[in-house]
């Protein structure tokens, strides 16, 4: 259980790093900022849902 949670924690940490990297790259004056943020939110939400559904090891 602890091992599985540790893997999940590592994946969540990687997700956070990936999202922060994208945020750093975004041009907040661009018209595409809205769709980009929405895509990031969808990606994060589905990834977290997938992690939550994976059975415990």
């Amino acid at each position, binding site marked *: 259980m602890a091992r599985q949670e540790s893997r999940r924690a590592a994946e969540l940490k990687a*997700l956070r790093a990936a999202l922060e990297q*994208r945020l750093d790259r975004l041009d907040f004056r661009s018209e595409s900022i809205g769709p980009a943020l929405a895509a990031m939110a969808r990606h994060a939400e589905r*990834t977290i849902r997938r992690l939550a559904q994976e059975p415990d090891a």
Partner: protein
Amino acid sequence: MMTAEGAASDYDTDILKWSEQQAELLRRRAANALDWDNLAEEIVDVGRSELRAVASHLVQALLHDLKAEAWPLSREVPHWRAEARGHRDDARAAFTQSMAQREELEIAELYGRALHRMPEMIDGVPPLPVPQVCPVTLDELLASPPEAA
């Protein structure tokens, strides 16, 4: 002696037989029996085919790198990066300088083709945003990887 008309007919019905016959005629310097028009077309096609192969490898390289960018947590990332490296290697091996200015290798066009082939979802997860303008030049894409220390 085989006539050019007979050879032209084989060109349409049995390309293997035609190519072997033409090779033999070339070896014998039998200029009058050669199927000149189709031979010229085939020679041009050798270059075109190499150009298409380079373009195809570059699109595949861009697509695999894009997938790794868009789904950075996927367990497939090492595989995608390896595929991208392999396709860049194959493109570099087939690339010649005369191809550099050809519109078939326009980087924006190749990148557009790669973006078009991106899946909408992988394992139920939509992609993170990726650049809509190609972030690398053709030279960078074809550059040799740095030597391992």
